[in-house]
């Protein structure tokens, strides 16, 4: 059976649009609430990235850091995250879930044990921010054996030669970081320039799905909609923080935001 991630891209292509990927932090602001958020946004999002919070994140901006620290404070553990995935999959069997985090969490859990658990709970893909190519070669192979996509990150600083090598080794989906920034930075490059870079990458192997992330908001998403997929993370985390501050329901607010994001790429 095809990985649900590939199915999601296929479905979006049939509808002639980019896939919408969301990122929320597992356990933000509570275990139950993060599950509720996943359930409610799954109607409009094609692929759900679930962040594994870490307390020394070297690539995350302030919005995601805030969410991650909140989740850790509320006691989220790796096994809780797997429980959330399992629970979610009970009612959303084919909605793809990608776990995204830092390698130390996997290293401490044990690579094999972690992948077995991913497999049994229904995780479809992994993004490991600080495990770049070629360091990730072995781990990516292990993922493949479990039918889990290991998603390679590509950046504006990645040289052409390196891009080719990474893409050659990559699984069907890759993630292009739009600009030099931590997550959630203000978009400092024009969407046109981002798409130019995207097209260069796409040409290397047109069969591989390339999603664009970092700095994408309600305002900018429309201009990038020709990509295979677009990831919105910090803007959602910010919405959760804002809802909590205003004593509103984060589930409804995030759900509305995702619906709006979807409408911009139709």
């Amino acid at each position, binding site marked *: 059976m095809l990985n649900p991630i590939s199915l999601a891209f296929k479905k979006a292509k049939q509808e002639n649009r980019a896939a919408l990927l969301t990122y929320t932090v597992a356990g933000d602001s509570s275990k139950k609430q993060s599950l509720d958020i996943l359930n409610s946004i799954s109607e409009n999002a094609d692929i759900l990235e679930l962040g594994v919070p870490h307390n020394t994140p070297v690539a*995350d901006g302030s919005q995601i850091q805030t969410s991650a620290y909140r989740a850790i404070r509320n006691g989220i553990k790796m096994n809780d995250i797997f429980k959330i995935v399992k629970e979610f999959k009970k009612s959303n069997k084919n909605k793809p879930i990608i776990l995204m985090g830092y390698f130390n969490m996997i290293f401490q859990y044990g690579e094999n044990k972690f992948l077995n658990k991913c497999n049994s709970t229904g995780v479809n893909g992994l993004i490991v921010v600080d495990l770049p190519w070629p360091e990730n070669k072995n781990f990516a192979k292990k993922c493949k054996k479990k039918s889990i996509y290991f998603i390679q990150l590509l950046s504006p600083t990645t040289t052409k030669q390196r891009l080719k090598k990474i893409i050659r080794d990559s699984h069907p989906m890759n993630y292009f970081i739009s600009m030099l920034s931590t997550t959630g930075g203000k978009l400092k490059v024009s969407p046109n320039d981002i798409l130019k870079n995207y097209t260069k990458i796409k040409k290397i192997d047109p069969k591989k799905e390339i999603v664009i992330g970092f700095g994408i908001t309600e305002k900018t998403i429309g201009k990038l909609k020709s990509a295979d997929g677009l990831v919105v993370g910090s803007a959602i985390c910010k919405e959760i923080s804002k809802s909590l501050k205003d004593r509103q329901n984060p589930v409804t607010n995030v759900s509305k935001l995702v619906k709006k994001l979807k409408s911009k790429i139709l």
Partner: protein
Amino acid sequence: MKIKKKIPLIDQASKLGFWGGKFGGNYVPETLKKPIEDLEILFNKLKNDKRFIAERDKYFKNWVGTPTRFIKLKNLTNHVGGAQIWSKVVSDANGGAHKIYNATVHCLLAKRSGKKFIIGDTGAGYAGKMLSMAAKKFGLKCKIFMGAKDIARQQPNVKAMKKNGAEVIPVYSGSQTLVDAVSECMRFWVANCDTTAMCVGSTVGPAVFVRICGWSTSQISRELKVQLIDEFGSIPKKLKLYNCVGGGSSSFGFWNEFMDYDKKQCEFIGVEAGGPARSKKHAAPLTYGSKIGILHGAAQYVNQDLEGQIEETESISAGLDYPGISPLHCFLKDTRRARYTAASDEDALSAYKTVTKFEKLRPSLEPSHAFSVAIKESKKLSKDTIVVVNSCGDAYKDREILKKRLGKKYVEPN
């Protein structure tokens, strides 16, 4: 796992940057791969370039001030009544600590690569102060990331940084100490690596930073080797080198030139920060058997919980208050070339009192940890044993803490 002879330890890492097959590496976001590779190419070329070495030595000699003194602590030796206690007074260096070596080299590298901005992290404020001095000297714009808690407790160094024209950026995340400052600095570099050079303040971080820092601070042991031979005619038969260990830059530099000697002749003793005697928190991952994990781009022994979250540390000395430890020291520990132990906050304060009572030397709280263990062990050692303690920082920065903990009479006017 074995140390190779005749090859500098910094060059014993594998192609992917691992010492002993498992310490170090480059666990970094993709965006940093290219700038790190560029820096590696530049450093590998320049570290063997005679002109570059001459340039480094010129600045070390005329600006940093080499050699720093190597002195016998006669009164302390008499008081302790065992081994001869000596000190390498690295705090003589311009700025008052060993951090100047790494800062100078990073600025020289930044100039060579055409960068106009340089950023750095700091705990005790020394790495930041020295980077701000070097940046000023070499005409680079400088930003220093520092935990808000450290800003409060190390004001003299904060003032010095600002005076040198650096922007001090307070970091409020996590424990608001060095670990968070390093994270924030790396995050800033992720977003600005096209225009900005990064200086990691110790022998930590992605492999190339470990190597650059170790290469820079090795100046300490190069000097010491000459000074020992001048003093004793040859390297003493029983030599013990005591050094505090936080990230591990001063200790590595203090030991590097003696790496190939048998440890029976030349023993290395690293003293980590044990934290307050009554607290379970500490900054001593090697002494207390912390598990291997990944922090700031490198695999190392690190204080962490079972899940892999990095644990908060506690130490009176901001410079040692770091949950991880250089991959070089992990390697030295596992190959048993160096021995590691810890001193508590109270031990360090007590050693500071003893040293300042008998000698005209004011070690900061970091080397006071090393003095504590050196004094204790010297009692039991023979008179022909040469104990050398690296006094790698000056206590001026600690005056507020010393005043509070020991009373006014322990703080000299400055």
